[in-house]
C-alpha cells in the first residue's frame, strides 16, 4: 500500500469524521463511494474500512457530545433493533438485488430530505423545563437558547421500524445507519436534532460492530488502510464538533437534508 493512498484515505476519513460529528452519522455513505470510485479500492475492503470508521466516528462524537444529549433509553431501544436489522441484512441480501437496494435507498433518502426541508422551522423542544419528558423523552441544557429544554419521543413504532431498516443498510452498504435514524428521529419522532445526533452516535458503533467483526474475520480489513481512515476520522470529528457547537439547529437540519439529497444521487449513480 502506497504512502499516497494512505494520505488519501486519511483525508477521506477526516471528511467522514467531520460530517459525522456535525450530523451524528458515520460518514460511510460518502466513504464507500470515495474509496471504490476515486481510489479503486475493492468493494469488500471499502465496506470493511467504512464500517470501522463508523465505529471511530461514533466514539469521537460521544467524546465531544455532552453526556446529557445522549438519550440512553432511546439508544438502547434503537440498538436492539439496529442489531436485529443488521443480522437480517445478510438474509435480505439474498432477496434484493444491488440495483434494487440502491434505488430503494436513493428514493428513501430523497423523500426524507424533502420532508426535512419542509419542516426546517419546526422545533421539537418544550421550553418549559418543568415539563415531564415521559418514559423515553429527556431534557438537556441548550446553549443555543440558553435554557433547559424537554422533549417527548413520539411514534415509537416508527423508531423501531426505522432502526431495523438502518441495521439492514449497515450490513448491506457498509454504513452505520445514522443517515436513516437521525432524520427519522428529528422529523417524525419528536427528538431535537442535537439529541438525535448524539443518541444516534451511541448506537452507530454498536450497529457497525456486527459487520466489522464479520469483515475482519473474513480478512477484508486492510489494517494500514483502516488505521489511516480512523486517524483521519479523529481529526475530522474534532473539527466537526467545534463547528457544530456554534451552528444553530436550523443550519444543522439544512445541512443534513443537503447531505441526504447528495446521498440519494450517489446511490442512483452507484446503482
Amino acid at each position, binding site marked *: 500500500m502506497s504512502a499516497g493512498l494512505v494520505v488519501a484515505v486519511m483525508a477521506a476519513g477526516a471528511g467522514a469524521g467531520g460530517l459525522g460529528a456535525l450530523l451524528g452519522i458515520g460518514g460511510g455513505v460518502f466513504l464507500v463511494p470515495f474509496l471504490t470510485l476515486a481510489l479503486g479500492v475493492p468493494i469488500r475492503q471499502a465496506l470493511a474500512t467504512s464500517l*470501522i470508521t463508523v*465505529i471511530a466516528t461514533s*466514539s469521537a462524537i*460521544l*467524546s465531544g457530545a455532552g453526556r446529557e444529549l445522549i438519550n*440512553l433509553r432511546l439508544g438502547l431501544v434503537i*440498538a*436492539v433493533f439496529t442489531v436485529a436489522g443488521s*443480522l437480517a441484512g445478510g438474509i435480505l441480501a439474498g432477496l434484493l438485488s444491488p440495483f434494487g437496494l440502491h434505488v430503494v435507498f436513493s428514493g428513501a433518502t430523497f423523500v426524507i430530505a424533502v420532508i426535512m426541508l419542509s419542516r426546517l422551522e419546526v422545533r421539537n423542544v418544550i421550553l418549559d423545563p418543568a415539563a415531564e419528558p415521559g418514559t423515553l423523552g429527556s431534557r438537556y441544557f441548550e446553549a443555543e437558547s440558553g435554557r433547559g429544554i424537554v422533549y417527548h419521543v413520539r411514534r415509537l413504532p416508527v423508531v423501531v421500524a426505522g432502526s431495523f431498516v438502518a441495521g439492514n443498510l449497515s450490513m448491506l452498504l457498509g454504513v452505520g445507519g445514522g443517515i436513516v435514524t437521525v432524520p427519522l428521529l428529528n422529523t417524525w419522532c419528536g427528538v431535537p436534532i442535537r439529541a438525535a445526533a448524539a443518541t444516534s452516535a451511541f448506537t452507530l458503533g454498536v450497529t457497525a460492530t456486527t459487520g466489522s467483526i*464479520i469483515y475482519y474475520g473474513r480478512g477484508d480489513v486492510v489494517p494500514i488502510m483502516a488505521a489511516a481512515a480512523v486517524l483521519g476520522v479523529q481529526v475530522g470529528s474534532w473539527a466537526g464538533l467545534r463547528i457544530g457547537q456554534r451552528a444553530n439547529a436550523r443550519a444543522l437540519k439544512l445541512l443534513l437534508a443537503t447531505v441526504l439529497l447528495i446521498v440519494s444521487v450517489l446511490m442512483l449513480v452507484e446503482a
Partner: protein
Amino acid sequence: MIDLLVAVGSTATTTTLAAGLLLWMHPDTAPAADLVVNVGLLILIATPVARLTGGLIEEARAREWRFAALGAAALVLLFGSFLYYVR
C-alpha cells in the same frame, strides 16, 4: 461509566493506531506494524460493545429493568449475529 469507557477506548485506539502507522513508515519496523495496528483495531471494535454493556449496567443500577433487558437483548443479538455469520 459510559464517559470513562469512551475516553479510555478512544485514547487507546488512537495511540495504538498512530504507533502502528509510524512503525509502518520505516522499513526496519514495518513488520511489527501489522500486529500493532490489529491490536488497535480490535480495541476499537470492542469499544461499542463495552459502551453498550455500560449502558445496560447504568439502567440496571437505576432499577430500570425494561431498559437493562433491552441492552442485554442487544448484546445477545450482537454475539448471535457474529456466531451466525462466522460459523
